[in-house]
């Protein structure tokens, strides 16, 4: 049996994350160590790589404990937008990465890919932004701009896509995320935030929002009158409910926690709530859903979810369990159903999603925290003890 990290063939899917490394032969620990950019005597330290001094919080090892770090960012290039970070959402991916759960973390890692702030400087060739604009950056800061996917505004599927943190930028240096006071980003990966969206509550849309908006659109689960299930009521799940309702879709939340029912219905606007561990409830709901967005990242059974689908229904995975799940084939065939996945979205679609959210007053339900609460927040996130996204008040609490 291959280690679970073998299924995460980063070499194939995102060569920029692990260039040249065939993962199968390495354990997560040795891979991370051998990959550590900073054991090489020729490499510069994070503080010395670039001219602009920046502060942030980083994890230095797989304990995942975050602590202040001085590092540096590049000067504003001609296509770059530099902004003062005001808020950064905490995504569950941040937790996975600081603990090296996927075996690909380059330490020190500065997480954060739900970043919003105010522009302080733009490069000479920047057309879309000016100083003072409210902007955001999500999960991507670069791509090849020349492949078929990039040409189709699908930078998130570009084989050379560059993640906002724990990636390698075009200049060969590691990318650092939004748990920091300043961000520098190529204009084509910066999102404009409309005036009426509260900056703190819209930060999580830059990952959770696009991650759920994109598959609802792509798989056609956005037609009024359809019935869509949302599995898991966390950061992704609660935003999925809001978008689906805005599309005019009937929404059922499927959860293992009965105590989330009242919120799901009264606060988030879901039409109904299904406790997945209750076989009677699940039985009654069989064959009633056009689609399901599954946000759960723990291992869980697919058979009951496939059973909830109508014929020709679609189960879309947006959570990423590390280990493979069991796929019962009979129900797929008998009902012509499909299981698919989806990962964030391209930049054009991310902007479309933000504009849609502004129009329909959709923001995340957040708990705003000071920077030095982040380790406690991570512990609570591990126990899913948050309604429903932590957002770090960077502007007011990240001290030099």
């Amino acid at each position, binding site marked *: 049996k291959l280690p679970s990290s073998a*299924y*995460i*063939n980063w070499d*194939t*899917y*995102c060569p920029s994350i692990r260039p040249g490394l065939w993962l199968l032969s390495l354990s997560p620990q040795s891979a991370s160590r051998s990959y550590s950019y900073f054991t090489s005597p020729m490499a510069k330290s994070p503080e010395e790589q670039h001219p602009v001094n920046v502060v942030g919080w980083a994890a230095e090892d797989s304990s995942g404990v975050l602590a202040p770090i001085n590092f540096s960012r590049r000067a504003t290039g001609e296509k770059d937008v530099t902004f003062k970070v005001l808020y950064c959402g905490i995504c569950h991916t941040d937790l996975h990465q600081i603990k090296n759960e996927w075996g690909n973390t380059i330490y020190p890692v500065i997480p954060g890919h739900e970043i919003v702030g105010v522009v302080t400087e733009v490069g000479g060739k920047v057309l879309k932004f000016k100083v003072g604009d409210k902007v955001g950056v999500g999960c991507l800061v670069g791509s090849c701009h020349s492949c078929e*996917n990039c040409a189709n505004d*699908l930078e998130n*599927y570009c*084989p050379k896509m560059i993640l906002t943190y724990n990636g390698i930028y075009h200049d060969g240096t590691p990318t650092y995320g939004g748990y920091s006071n300043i961000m520098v980003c190529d204009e084509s990966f910066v999102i404009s935030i409309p005036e009426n969206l509260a900056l703190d509550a819209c930060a999580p849309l830059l990952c959770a929002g696009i991650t759920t908006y994109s598959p609802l659109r*792509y798989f056609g689960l956005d037609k009024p009158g359809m019935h869509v299930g949302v599995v898991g009521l966390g950061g992704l799940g609660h935003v999925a409910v809001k978008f689906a309702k805005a599309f005019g879709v009937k929404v059922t939340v499927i959860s293992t926690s009965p105590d989330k029912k009242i919120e799901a219905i009264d606060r988030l606007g879901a039409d109904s709530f299904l406790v997945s561990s209750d076989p009677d409830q699940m039985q009654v709901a069989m064959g009633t859903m056009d689609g399901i967005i599954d946000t759960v990242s723990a291992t869980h059974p*697919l*058979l009951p979810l496939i*059973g909830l689908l109508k*014929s*020709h229904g679609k189960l879309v*995975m*947006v*959570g*990423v*369990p*590390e280990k*493979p*799940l*069991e*796929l*019962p*084939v*009979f*129900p*797929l*065939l*008998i*009902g*012509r*159903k*499909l*299981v*698919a*996945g*989806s*990962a964030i979205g391209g930049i054009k679609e991310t902007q479309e999603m933000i504009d849609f959210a502004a129009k329909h007053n959709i923001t995340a339900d957040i708990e705003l925290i000071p920077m030095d609460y982040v380790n406690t927040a991570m512990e609570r996130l591990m126990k899913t003890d948050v309604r429903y996204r932590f957002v770090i008040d960077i502007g007011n609490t990240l001290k030099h």
Partner: protein
Amino acid sequence: NISPISHSLTHSDKHKHRNKMAKSPETEHPNKAFGWAARDKSGLLSPFHFSRRDNGENDVTVKILYCGVCHTDLHTIKNDWGFTYYPVVPGHEIVGIATKVGKNVTTFKEGDRVGVGVITGSCQSCESCDQDLENYCPQMAFTYNAIGSDGTKNYGGYSETIVVDQRFVLRFPEGLPSDSGAPLLCAGITVYSPMKYYGMTEPGKHLGVAGLGGLGHVAVKIGKAFGLKVTVISSSPSKEDEAINRLGADSFLVSSDPRNMKAAIGTMDYIIDTVSAVHALFPLLSLLKVNGKLVTLGLPEKPLELPIFPLVLGRKMVGGSDVGGMKETQEMLDFCAKHNITADIELIKMDEINSAMERLAKSDVRYRFVIDVANSLSPP
């Protein structure tokens, strides 16, 4: 409970069935019939006397000429899936001549060459039936091992005759041979339907066909007819020559060769997976490009392992499909007639069926057995 025919064997149907079972298979209907049946999960087939209903006003009676041997027949006679109701007369790739038509039948007349496939009944009044998707009707009845609308068990094409509602009878096109065209009634539609539904027909795109058996070899031919580039993915290197030279595939990938598989990563737009044994999906998913589609058509006994990362990072999908509706099956037959697509068959006599089943279990057939029913099935 995921038995696919549980819907056609509801409690009341079983109750009706039990009542009718007071009569034996030989006496439940007025017309004597003869075929070969399996009586237990040894799967051994032997002569079997039963009976067929009178030709009703909507019915067509078919004198069976040929019947293809589908892998489902083998799964069913051995009760691999746990829902076989013995005795079972298999066979759902039936070609024959209409000998009687009921007074409401307008599309067929006596003497017509006709086909009967996997389905012989549905409710004919639900949303699925209205959309020509009888194969997804909750009351859908299979040609064999299911309960028909009169509450009696359906017996399939390993027999002399069959009586079928006209809606489930197909016109066999001119130019499509009866013997090598018979397997299209299951293998053909099973591949054709998902290729249309999931949009796997854009000329110039790259199709992978995993498994080169009854379904797989037809998938290659249909894929080429759609103008696709086709790569066969197989664990048997010995099939390469045939795949390319006889079936027209563009290339061949040995799935057990890691270097070849690695070189082919991210090169395919579509994959038709016909493998019926439990097998790894991860290597197949790796072969797909972003937004790639894998359709799984084989029916393994156990669930498969589905790695989620590749689905999510590549927006890929794994979908299922189950034969096709009657309108689409007719469309498929006409398509195959137009493109000269038939199955590669080995014609056998009825009494060779048991050794054919043994060989089928070892995939020792190029690529479908077809029983020469009319010339070899005779009551003792």
